């Protein structure tokens, strides 16, 4: 016979103000098998826990119900408490009478009635609780970082410094990401390349870090502590073991295509090192424009290479490696504004550029050697318009969110123009100026002091008249239309997640939101974890953010990885599904619905009457199963049960409620 203890929490007045807790306790005492019921001001407090432990001894309880807040809040607290008692930590049920009762009701009598129902259900369920024990799985002490931008580099360096092997997978030929494209960084005006390239070099030279550039994640199998990742290495057509990065090939290559690194301002050859400080500083051939690979002509690079490192027959390679943890740092891209905003010329005016293009324009190693000139005619612009929120905060044409970094980099661009071009005028069209960061407001103040003219309102139209770009907007602070004749327009375009993020997320079994940003496990308390164990995130794959926030988040993700990899083995939750293989028909529905790829069909020996046969049945991988219960709900024969939430337990709850 079960001996159940019921403990009802006041939660200060959170519960007690709306629910008559004493009445709930009195009702609980009448429920079958309840040996003891009481109330207390704060059950989660130390004296509260001590009281529960004492009661377990005094009344010889063998399972307990705690009526309090959501189990998400304190279920773990009470499980830990039970570890020090004779009761198994899983012989516990939480009746949520705060979030699901006290907080959402005002009628005290009805709320009390509902709280009693909650407790009644929990008592019915706890009667069928069985002791569960955790098991352990070994951990592979290596980490994979997907994305070689500043987030990925920082996370990799931190993990590698802690002594663990790290692999960085980067789809481009060099690590560095967007940060290395930037000229200066706000608000300190540090040279972006000067502070990021040492980190790139460190990552390239670190004994614990393996760089895999021109690579992508092809397939992810396994689970926390034991991922098996297949990495696809795109053909580079250059043997990097032989190549010394002398660069002779790229000077001789006759092909010229727009440079990705320079955002289309300026060109690069078909065999190229993306930029001077690239890591690795070795070239790759772009097979889409190389004359040899597309038309079987040319072949100059092969002839000039002193080390015979060119290999036109190079092929895509696949390797599979084991990792214990994965960090997603896939970063952002800028939205394709030209498709979204025909009113801004839709890309037909060469002098309407993006902020990232301006970064290349103003950068000393960029295509103009740092001279701010118009891409169309190479003339120095005198009147420059900066349009903010292009694609951001636009539910109709763009993204509903704020891209967070644009206010500051626009202020920086204005400062740079006013600084580099004497007598220039900068007009910034804005909706709000958001400067939430240390030293940011001061930077904005200084930019206005430099002479930047902020005009509140969105630009409605940009069109060309002679040599000028006419920007029409409203000064909403005056309620008047304004027209600015500009020589150049810089659009602060919205950030969006990397184009293939949905693909990557699918492979990893992590979720993305409606804007395709990777979803964190909890927006406040688990900001660098994903819903999938062992997969962490950092940087702009999670949402728009600036460099300081990205680096901080990368460090946080690295700390989480280290905490995981520091153990030789890890405990798994025992609340996972189990298959009664004697009843399983092997239909495979559970395999299809499982979001964690935790169920597979296996062959087991069985019997058909007296005949020995091989049966196909479902099998749950205890490392992968997260206990969501989809399989149990789908199972046609009812042979799958989620431990801790068995069908029997759920039905007992329903019975209790319907009696």
């Amino acid at each position, binding site marked *: 016979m079960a001996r159940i203890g019921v403990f009802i929490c006041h939660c200060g007045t959170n519960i007690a103000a709306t629910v008559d807790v004493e009445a709930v306790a009195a009702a609980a005492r009448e429920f079958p098998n309840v040996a003891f019921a009481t109330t207390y001001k704060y059950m989660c407090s130390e004296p509260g826990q001590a009281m529960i432990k004492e009661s377990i001894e005094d009344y010889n309880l063998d399972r307990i119900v705690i009526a309090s807040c959501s189990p998400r809040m304190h279920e773990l607290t009470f499980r830990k408490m039970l570890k020090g008692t004779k009761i198994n930590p899983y012989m516990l049920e939480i009746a949520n009478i705060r979030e699901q009762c006290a907080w959402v009701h005002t009628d005290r009598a009805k709320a009390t009635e509902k709280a009693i129902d909650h407790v009644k259900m929990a008592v019915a369920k706890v009667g069928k609780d069985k002791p569960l024990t955790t098991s352990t799985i070994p951990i592979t002490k290596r980490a994979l970082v997907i994305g070689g931008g500043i987030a990925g580099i920082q996370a990799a360096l931190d993990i590698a410094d802690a002594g663990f092997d790290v692999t960085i997978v980067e789809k481009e030929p060099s690590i560095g990401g967007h940060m290395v494209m930037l000229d200066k960084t706000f608000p300190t005006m540090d040279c972006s390349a000067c502070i990021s390239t040492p980190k790139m070099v460190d990552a390239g030279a670190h004994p614990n870090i393996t760089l895999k550039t021109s690579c992508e994640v092809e397939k992810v199998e396994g689970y926390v502590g034991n991922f098996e990742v297949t990495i696809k290495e795109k053909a580079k057509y250059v043997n990097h073991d032989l190549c010394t990065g002398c660069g002779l090939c790229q000077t001789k290559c006759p092909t010229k295509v727009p440079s990705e690194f320079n955002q289309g301002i300026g060109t690069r050859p078909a065999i190229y090192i993306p930029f001077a400080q690239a890591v690795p500083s070795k070239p790759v051939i772009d097979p889409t424009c190389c004359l040899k690979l597309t038309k079987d002509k040319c072949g100059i690079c092969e002839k000039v290479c002193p080390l015979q490192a060119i290999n036109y027959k190079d092929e895509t390679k696949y390797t599979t490696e084991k990792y214990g943890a994965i960090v997603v740092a896939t970063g952002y891209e800028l939205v394709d504004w030209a498709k979204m905003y025909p009113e801004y010329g839709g890309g037909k005016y060469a002098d309407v550029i993006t902020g990232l293009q301006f970064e290349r324009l103003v950068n000393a190693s960029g295509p103009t050697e740092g001279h701010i000139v118009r891409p169309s005619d190479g003339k120095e612009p005198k009147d420059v318009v900066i349009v903010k929120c292009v694609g951001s905060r636009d539910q109709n044409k763009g993204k509903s969110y704020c891209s967070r970094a644009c206010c500051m980099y626009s202020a920086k661009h204005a400062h740079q123009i006013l600084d580099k071009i004497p007598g220039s005028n900068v007009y910034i069209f804005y909706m709000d100026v958001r400067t939430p960061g240390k030293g940011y407001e001061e930077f904005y103040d200084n930019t206005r*002091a430099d002479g930047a003219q902020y005009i509140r309102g969105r630009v409605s139209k940009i069109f060309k008249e002679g040599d000028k770009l006419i920007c029409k907007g409203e000064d909403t*602070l005056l309620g008047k239309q304004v027209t600015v004749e500009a020589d150049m327009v810089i659009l602060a375009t919205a950030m969006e997640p990397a184009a293939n993020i949905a693909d990557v997320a699918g492979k990893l079994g992590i979720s993305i939101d409606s804007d395709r940003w990777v979803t964190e496990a909890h927006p406040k308390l688990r900001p660098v974890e994903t819903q999938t164990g062992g997969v962490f995130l950092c940087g702009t794959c999670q949402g728009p953010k600036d460099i300081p926030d990205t680096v901080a988040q990368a460090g946080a993700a690295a700390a989480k990885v280290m905490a995981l990899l520091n153990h030789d083995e890890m405990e798994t939750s025992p609340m996972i599904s189990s298959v009664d293989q004697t009843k399983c028909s092997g239909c495979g529905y559970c395999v299809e619905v499982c979001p964690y790829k935790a169920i597979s069909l296996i062959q087991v020996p069985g019997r058909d009457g007296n005949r020995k046969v091989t049966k196909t049945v479902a099998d749950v991988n205890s490392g992968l199963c997260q206990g969501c219960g989809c399989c149990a709900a789908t199972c046609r024969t009812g042979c799958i049960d989620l431990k801790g939430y068995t069908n029997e337990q759920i039905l007992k709850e329903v019975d209790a409620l319907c009696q």
Partner: protein
Amino acid sequence: MEKILNRKEGKLLAERIAREADVKLHECYQCGKCSAGCPMADAMDLMPRQIVHLMQLGDMTEVMKSKSIWLCASCHTCVERCPHSIDIPTLMEKSRMEAQRRGICAVRDVRLFNDIFMETVRGFGKSQEVILEGAYNVTSGHFFQDMKNVPKMLQKEIVRPELNQVNAVNEVRDIMKECEKGGANR
């Protein structure tokens, strides 16, 4: 719209006025606290905030054509509450003087009152309320403005029927001359 000053001239003038008022125009981020607390805002055509914004833009034509610069009571509530302590009354005053010089006046009565006040001080060495009131009511055409208050004011001796002359009228005139010269030169 008739432009008295082009943008470049306007910008220079706005900058000069701001310098004289010891105001850094770029500091204003248009929060509107000045306008929210202004006791004269109801009567103004442009909010004090908008006056500052127009000066930021160098649109002094709009500023000088506005009623607001004539209606500002110089109570300094705005300065007191401004997060950047921007001295709007002085900006208004200097703009008013510039407007006066160009013969622009959006609120005739205010200039009339001002002129009559100055004349009575010049004539008697001190403000003469009865003459000021009388002359203003007659010249403005508001014949009975404030008339019903006269008996009470006389009774409480807030105004006196007799003239309130000072001895050193000439010295006062000299001081006024100096001030006007200074004001014009500044």
